[in-house]
């Protein structure tokens, strides 16, 4: 039991950068901008963050550097897609490759050297709560920050006026515009902020979970793509997105844990299992949209049908209607 708790606490810690990056992506996609560069950006920010922390000896500087790397990348994406009206997909994709290679290239001087790391800090009192204490409150500050971020971003998007404006801008920019909202300004702000959070995920790895900078061996390549898909899975909602992040890392852990029991299953199978599982979940989430399901439901008695409709409506979250579409006033 205790061991399981420790493992789960590890899962939560390991999922933290994923969760933070998913929330970042959620912010920018809610405003209508897809940040496809997440993958390369996380790698690059891991490198810059580590380098900054190593050079100054202060981890906070490293974290800040990661955030700034992301924010600058965000401004770049906004500029090209909003001001220059370039395709967000093409630009994001290329930036993703570019950032990654840039990280490997510029990171050479910082290869395999020990650097500062974020140290753990158990929260007094809270850490003594049975089960929850060791699970949630015996972590480091970054993890606590992610808790706050999850709740704050959810509250911001769904329970504040500013959040409504953000969603409006991503849904119907023309309507938002004719109500006096500066659509492009909103998009700039949220893309920079969101991209900053994605950037922050980088040093969360290199200064904590996978401490150090090991170039191509750092093993961060690929996480950004997962972040993008979890954002969709999460229906552009920080709570669901975070759940997706934790679920994904849990499945990864499960794959590793089961390896010792199911020795006859090739280890590769268990390692890639989380990916098809994520796809299956996505499928289930959107199944209510398909025609055959609608037809099948029509044959059910009223009460049952109603329950299914409710379930599907709850699960299904359509993307922001203007995602990826540049806004042009008429």
């Amino acid at each position, binding site marked *: 039991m205790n061991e399981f708790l420790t493992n789960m606490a590890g899962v939560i810690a390991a999922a933290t950068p994923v969760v933070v990056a998913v929330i970042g992506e959620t912010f920018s996609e809610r405003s209508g901008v897809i940040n496809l560069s997440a993958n390369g950006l996380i790698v690059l920010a891991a490198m810059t963050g580590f380098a900054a922390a190593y050079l100054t000896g202060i981890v906070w500087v490293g974290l800040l550097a990661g955030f700034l790397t992301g924010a600058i990348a965000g401004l770049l994406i906004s500029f090209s897609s909003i001001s220059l009206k370039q395709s967000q997909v093409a630009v994001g994709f290329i930036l993703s490759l570019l950032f990654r290679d840039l990280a490997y290239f510029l990171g050479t001087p910082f290869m395999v050297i020990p650097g500062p790391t974020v140290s753990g800090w158990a929260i007094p009192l809270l850490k003594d709560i049975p089960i929850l204490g060791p699970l949630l409150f015996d972590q480091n500050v970054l993890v606590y920050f992610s808790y706050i971020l999850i709740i704050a971003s959810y509250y911001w998007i769904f329970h504040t006026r500013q959040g409504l*404006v953000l*969603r409006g801008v991503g849904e*119907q920019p023309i309507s938002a*515009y004719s*109500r006096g909202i500066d659509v492009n300004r909103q998009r700039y702000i949220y893309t920079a902020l969101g991209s900053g959070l994605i950037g922050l995920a980088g040093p969360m790895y290199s200064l904590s979970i996978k401490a150090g900078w090991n170039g191509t061996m750092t093993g961060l390549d690929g996480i950004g793509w997962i972040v993008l898909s979890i954002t969709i899975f999460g229906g552009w909602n920080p709570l669901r997105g975070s759940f997706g992040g934790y679920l994904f890392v849990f499945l990864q852990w499960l794959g590793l844990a089961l390896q010792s029991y199911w020795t006859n299953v090739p280890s590769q199978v268990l390692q890639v299992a989380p990916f098809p599982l994520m796809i299956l979940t996505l499928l289930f989430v959107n199944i209510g949209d398909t025609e055959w399901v609608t037809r099948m439901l*029509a044959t059910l008695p009223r009460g049952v049908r109603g329950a299914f409709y409710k379930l599907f409506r709850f699960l299904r979250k*359509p993307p922001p209607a203007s995602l990826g579409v540049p806004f042009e*006033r008429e």
Partner: protein
Amino acid sequence: MHIQLKNIHKYFGSVHANNDVSLTIEPGQILGLLGENGAGKSTLMKILSGLICKDSGEILINGEEQDLKSPADALRLGIGMLHQDPHDFPSMTIREDLQIWDQRSGRANHSAVDWQALMKIQEDLGFNLDLDGSVGELTVGERQQLELARLLWLGVELLILDEPTTGISASQQEILFSALKKLAGQGKTIIFVSHKLEEVKELCSRAVVLRKGCLIGEREAPFDENDLVKLMFGRQITRTRTAHAGTRDVCLSVQKLNIEDFRIAIENVNFDLYAGEVIGLAGMEGSGQRQFLQALAGMKQPSSGHILFGDEDLFGKNCYDYQKRGIFYVPSARMEEGLVPGMTLEEHYILSDCEKRVFIDSKKSHKVTEDRIQRFNIKGRAVTFSEELSGGNQQRLLLSLLQDPAKVLLLENPTRGLDIESTNWIWSILRERCQAATSIIFSSADLDELTFYADRILVFFSGRISEPLDSAGLDEERLGRMIGGKD
């Protein structure tokens, strides 16, 4: 608010949408802005509300020149506009929708969200919007109501209404008009864009007419209708009614049909549609007409019942099966459901052409496009994007896309936003089809249109459907009462 427009010009590419328009509007006045489809009315109003920028000219508000760069600037001055296609947020609840506006441009006394004031406005206008309902589930008319209530709630000084009465019943219109008169009495300025002369006659103290981008005339109340028509179209227009082609051959028979969704339940519908007949659906927007039309088109699954087409029961089939049999549905939200923004007219025709071939026969599609543009008198070219057309011309495009061998046409508000000439003309086309045994079911908020063009009328009231009424000799008063659920 005193408004003066001086020599406004606006080009869209080679289209001169506003040509040297000068106009003064006094405070407390209700000004009617008339003009045929594509005359440039919406363009002029969008310029005044900051949504688009003029190419040249001056706008003076209360004597001061203002440079309206964005709607935010206009809102700050107290200019609000109800757009022809509502500018709202279909994915949100009404309550959420209402909270989206830029606070810096909102009026000071409304920085807090005052739901009571909103409910009061709703009540005064006789609207019945459920704040927790979703905007996307409203009909176009209800969405216009929502926008109108919202603008009044924000307390604008100049209220621009771009065809606000398309989805409102006669009684609601009365309430709306008296509300507008009251607002004008309080010194607010109102610009009322419309095609409907009766409305302008009833409401406005002054009317100006645009034609092909130019302001060509101005009249004070009392207006002479014929005179206004002549100004608008350059000639007299009379309604022509073709003989009914209705036969007694049953084309579609609906039996014990039940339709339900989370919004409305329609129970036990029974009627026969005869070949070549026109049935009109009367009723307030959102009383179930849309669900009914969609169910008959296979776009919405009815929960039980029979839809007999010939010997075949179409219940449970999908909309492609219906289309294969020549049953077509034309929605009223043209930009969202009917047309594809970002595609040209020609591409629309190619898309709607069912021919199964890989390559586009460009010679043929050019020909079809030119032919349809001419035949349907669309003010646009083959390479024009659908969203660049004026509202009325979008409607023409939508109707021109209908496949030819049609057995049943299900039209939701087919002439919404069309001027008299176009309405006449569309109906002459539709009537021509009836001669060829096509049957039509259409919904409309316009009682005149219903009694004039329909052979029989079904009245909807919150999901209940009346017996079919013969439109010949039907008295409009009674129809109005039935629509209000009082008969």
